[in-house]
């Protein structure tokens, strides 16, 4: 049992809920038996209750808070803007990273080849007029030569033999700020497109790859179109057609004549 000298200092602690558990029970038990301590407690309790009962004690008119409310609202607005700006900066950073990462992994194939596929579809749909229409490689070469940033002389394949395909003409296009040559061919009344660029930013790649004659050919398909891309002497080629053949066989369709087969010796050997 606590003595009065131990109880007195605890009166305030008890009122302030700082005395709990067994100690509180012992405190309460003492008060029921000690009139002096009870009187002391009641007086302090009365004082505390009187003050607490006077809450809020000081009060200001609502307009007194207008200035600080405005301050806080302005601060919260700035915080929101900062959060948005941070989120936007993060999003931009992610977008830049993606933009930088994609070409490394697939733009060389997908963007350039998709561009070639789009050009092919436009040409096949008749929505893509050629700048020069001729079946003569020499005529088309002469027109393109001064307009593209690379040397271009179209060969007259197959040399001396029966042509399985025919040149239709050409057009100058812009790809990622550089001039590229679009060549249109036809075979069995089906269009074949060939895009030629000298951009060092383009790296041909694709689903399947084949090596032939020291070159690597990449084969892929997109919405029914067959796309072949390769690099040769600094130029990047993307050929698009809807010829229903797979992989390396597509080369043999155009270049399957006896005189040309030797040029593609080894074609069909998977890497």
């Amino acid at each position: 049992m606590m003595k009065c000298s131990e109880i007195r200092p605890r009166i305030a602690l008890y009122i302030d809920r700082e005395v709990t558990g067994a100690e509180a029970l012992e405190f309460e038990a003492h008060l029921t038996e000690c009139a002096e301590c009870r009187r002391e407690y009641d007086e302090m309790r009365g004082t505390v209750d009187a003050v607490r009962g006077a809450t809020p004690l000081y009060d200001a008119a609502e307009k007194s808070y207008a200035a600080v409310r405005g301050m806080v609202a302005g601060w919260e607005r700035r915080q929101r803007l900062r959060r948005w700006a941070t989120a936007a900066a993060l999003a931009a950073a992610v977008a830049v990273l993606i933009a930088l990462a994609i070409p490394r992994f697939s733009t060389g194939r997908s963007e350039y080849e998709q561009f070639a596929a789009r050009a092919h579809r436009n040409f096949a749909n008749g929505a893509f007029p050629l700048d020069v229409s001729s079946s003569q490689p020499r005529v088309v070469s002469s027109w393109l030569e001064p307009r593209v940033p690379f040397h271009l002389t179209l060969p007259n394949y197959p040399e001396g033999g029966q042509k399985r395909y025919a040149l239709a003409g050409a057009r100058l296009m812009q790809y990622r700020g550089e001039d590229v040559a679009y060549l249109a061919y036809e075979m069995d009344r089906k269009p074949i497109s060939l895009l030629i660029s000298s951009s060092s930013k383009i790296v041909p790649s694709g689903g399947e790859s084949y090596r032939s004659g020291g070159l690597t050919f990449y084969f892929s398909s997109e919405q029914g179109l067959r796309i072949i891309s390769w690099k040769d002497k600094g130029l990047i080629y993307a050929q698009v057609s809807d010829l229903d053949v797979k992989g390396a066989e597509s080369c043999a369709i155009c270049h399957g004549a006896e005189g040309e087969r030797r040029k593609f010796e080894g074609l069909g050997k998977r890497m």
Partner: protein
Amino acid sequence: MGCYPSLYRYARSLCGEPWEAEELLQETYKRALAAKRKPVVADADEIRPWIFTIMRHVWQNERRRMSRSQETEFDDAAAIVSDENVELAMSRKLLVSEVRAAVDSLPGPWREIIVMREIEDLTYAQIATVLGCPAGTVMSRLARARGALRQLLTPRTPEVRR
């Protein structure tokens, strides 16, 4: 950040005049919003000890600036309470204005601790944080302040007119 009434009451316990309290409130919010490190707490009540501390610093700095002298340490034991402005009605429930008059008549540090404990319900530990002193000091100061209030609020025996 929306504990304006609570902070205003604390400002009133520090300053005597309502207009001073309003100025102190604004200055405190200005400093609090500009603070680089703010407490991250889910409960708005938890932010009070932090913002009370800022208010106290602002108030102390202003006092030092005005008096241009070193502040003397408050002596709880030597504090004197004047009850000349406290007019208590006899034998009836105390009015808010009467309690306010009693609280207002306390020396500043006692008034401050009474408001923090009885009105704002801050714990001893929170009060110690705001005052920058040990919890023991809080308890002894609170006991003295309560004792003074008890004296002021206890109905006095009316003088017998002869």
